[in-house]
């Protein structure tokens, strides 16, 4: 194999120009970039919809839009963010770009299938766009019977989500087989970077959970087309059955979102605190444990939907158990930081913010897991706050962190550190300003999904809107800063962060075939600040 490769001159994977050369490429790095462009575009569109909603919610009464427009914006914000941005988010972008290099492979197991996954993703995007003429107003959860009776384009949105799910299944299968079969010689399971463990666990969930929601959405489409009351009680159907099917996927899916983010944190923390990761095996297996537990907690979304008391107690208890592997990770990260030489570079700032915000997100999940308390908090802004603390404070922030961390490798350019670090504070402060008031609003009884509210909620809503716009500016300038670096940034060295994982041992940007010769692995990648490294530094 090494012989065939040596015939290629070392050229960057970015060398070939033209849109066609990108769309026809089966190179995992190029496919990763394509996902990056599409998912980040979806993020900006979904973000603008959120800002429009916050503009309307800044004052009581209706100012800019009618309630129907608000419902549509809410649905599109949720659907675009979930199906087009955050689910493919870290898995399809950085999973594609980084995972094969980190295990010492030249590509994923099935490169053509990988390209096909992206084409299917584009098809899903196209189908969702088709429905924008009369966009759905059901919320991203498509609960029947409303989703069966509204005359908006529910069918295109659900079909789009189904097609995107197919793309996500294919990517998941590809990564699982890649990790099992394509590891370089000497790359044992316990020498894998923790990012790989995280993507592996997320892929397992993608493969197991996605078919369930896929066929359920098709059942919903059939219900509308054929007029069968499958989920509509007026015709003998059972709407709670849809909720069971929907959450059997849609609860595990939040772990598809958060596990890769946890993987990125586990990569960044040791590099920027110059210490070996603490509790490698505990972090690795807790990813798998979270993936396993994620399948038996779905009914905590149904505490107020005629769930029996026994089932409620069981699901409440199972939900609490998720806290265990999650807490294991947090304690190990904190132990990694302890007595480290902490460098507050942008990726590290985001990672520390992640730990802080994710603890809040995780702890506010516990009251929601208690049946009694959930009856009060269900469907209020408390849930919105909890969800955004885990998924935005968790996954989105780590997506930004990963962008900064791997940017020099992906593009071969260094970004402007000062601007990035300054904008971090916009993001961090803006984020807390947006969502802390939402916890208080929720406890006070403010229902979610409403376009208007009572005057007593006005001050907190105003603060939340101000926070949202601060956050919006933060994200926008952060991304702009990265884009400017493409032209103006300094050329990046191969290993600007002095990291040990394999992707930093090759050129920035990598060559088309990643490695000149497949490396043989002799140790794990986390020997930071050990005797060997100190010896090298003192020379």
């Amino acid at each position, binding site marked *: *194999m090494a*012989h*065939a*490769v040596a*015939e290629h001159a070392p050229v960057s994977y970015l060398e070939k120009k033209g849109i066609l050369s990108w769309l026809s490429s*089966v*190179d995992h790095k190029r496919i990763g970039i394509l996902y990056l462009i599409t998912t980040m575009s979806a993020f900006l569109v979904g973000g603008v919809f959120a800002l429009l909603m916050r503009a309307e919610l800044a004052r009581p009464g209706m100012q800019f839009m009618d309630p129907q427009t608000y419902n549509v914006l809410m649905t599109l914000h949720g659907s675009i963010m979930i199906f087009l941005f955050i689910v493919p988010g870290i898995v399809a972008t950085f999973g594609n770009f980084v995972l094969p290099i980190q295990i010492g492979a*030249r*590509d994923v*197991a*099935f*490169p*053509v*299938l990988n390209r096909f996954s992206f084409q299917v993703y584009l098809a899903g995007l196209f189908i969702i766009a088709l429905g924008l003429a009369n966009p759905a107003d059901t919320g991203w959860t498509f609960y029947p019977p409303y989703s*069966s*009776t509204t005359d908006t384009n529910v069918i295109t949105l659900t079909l789009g989500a189904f097609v995107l799910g197919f793309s996500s*299944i294919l990517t*998941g*299968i*590809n990564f*699982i*087989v890649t990790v*099992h*079969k*394509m590891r370089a010689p000497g790359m044992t399971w316990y020498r894998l970077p923790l990012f790989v463990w995280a993507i592996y666990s997320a892929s397992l969930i993608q*493969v*197991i959970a*996605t*078919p*369930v929601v*896929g*066929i*359920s959405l098709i*059942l919903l489409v*059939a219900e*509308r*087309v*054929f*007029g*069968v*009351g*499958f989920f*509509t009680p*007026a*015709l*003998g*159907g*059972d709407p709670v*059955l849809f909720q069971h*099917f929907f959450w059997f996927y849609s609860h595990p899916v939040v772990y598809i979102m958060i596990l890769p983010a946890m993987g990125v944190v586990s990569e960044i923390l040791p590099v920027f605190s110059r210490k070996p990761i603490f509790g490698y095996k505990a972090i690795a297996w807790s990813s798998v444990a979270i993936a396993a537990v994620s399948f038996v907690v779905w009914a905590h979304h149904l505490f107020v939907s005629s769930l029996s008391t026994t089932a409620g107690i069981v699901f409440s208890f199972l939900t609490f158990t998720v806290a265990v592997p999650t807490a294991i990770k947090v304690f190990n990260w904190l132990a990694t930081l302890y007595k480290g030489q902490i460098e507050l570079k942008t990726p590290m700032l985001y990672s520390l913010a992640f730990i802080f915000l994710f603890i809040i997100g995780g702890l506010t999940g516990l009251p929601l897991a208690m049946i009694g308390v959930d009856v009060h908090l269900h469907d209020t802004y408390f849930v919105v706050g909890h969800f955004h603390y885990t998924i935005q404070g968790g996954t989105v922030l780590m997506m930004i962190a990963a962008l900064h961390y791997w940017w020099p490798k992906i593009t071969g350019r260094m970004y402007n550190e000062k601007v990035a670090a300054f904008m971090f504070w916009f993001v961090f402060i803006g984020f807390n300003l947006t969502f802390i008031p939402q916890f208080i609003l929720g406890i006070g009884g403010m229902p979610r999904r409403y376009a208007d509210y009572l005057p007593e909620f006005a001050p907190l809503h105003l603060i939340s809107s101000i926070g949202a716009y601060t956050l919006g500016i933060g994200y926008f300038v952060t991304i702009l800063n990265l884009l400017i670096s493409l032209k103006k940034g300094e050329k990046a060295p191969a290993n600007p962060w002095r990291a040990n994982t394999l992707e930093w041992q090759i050129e920035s940007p990598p060559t088309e*075939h990643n490695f000149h010769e497949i490396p043989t692995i002799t140790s794990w990648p986390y020997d930071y600040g050990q005797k060997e490294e100190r010896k090298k530094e003192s020379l």
Partner: protein
Amino acid sequence: MSVATAVKKLHDGSKWGNPPELVYDMSRMGFWLFLATELLLFAVLFTAYAVYYFHDPAGFHASAHELSVGFGAANTIILLVSSFTVAWSIEAIKQGNIRLMNILLAFTIGCGLVFLGNKYFEYSHKMHEVELEAVALAKSPALLKDLKEQGKCFTNTAGQEVCRVIPFNVANIGSGDPLTKPAFASMFFFLYFFLTGVHGLHIVVGVALLSWVLIKGLRGEFHPGWYTPVEVGGLYWHLVDLIWIYLFPLLYLVS
């Protein structure tokens, strides 16, 4: 790139020319994972079947009575035989018997087509009126009311209230409010058409997949050192067969 690597590239579509043994290994693993997703997809439908069966066992029994066990049994035998021939074709290529492999693949594809032909006759039969016990229609009160107004309900010689009804009424699709004009006579018939429809779609995909394998076989691309597509096509066909083994009793024998 050497000729050998280029040939391997043709086989697995990989840029780096993974050795055929590795491609075989990876394809099998990837395909088993894919089959797992297929099982989960049908698991949802089986769960839904179970839920609605326990809502209304009498309705399910009455509706299932209208299905032809003969047709169902014939299709079961056809699929079982085809599963055997596809397994035999893999054994044939392992021993280098390309001609036998091609014949067996062609036979399997033929079985798939006969299955689909049977389904076509069954489906078109089900779109005509059948006598259905009113109990099976009770879950669609709007439909039952309509039928009574049209004078299509009466008491039969056994003393049961029955209605003449079209199990899958194409004319009702998209006309008026779909929720008051259902296309399916009962939940059972919706499940019947949905389950066998999704399964039939899998048969179509399976036939297409095996035809692609057969074309490659006729071109002489397979030999005992390279038959991954035959193996993968066979795995898919077994799955389609396996799912039918569950559909047959649930839909045809439940009466």
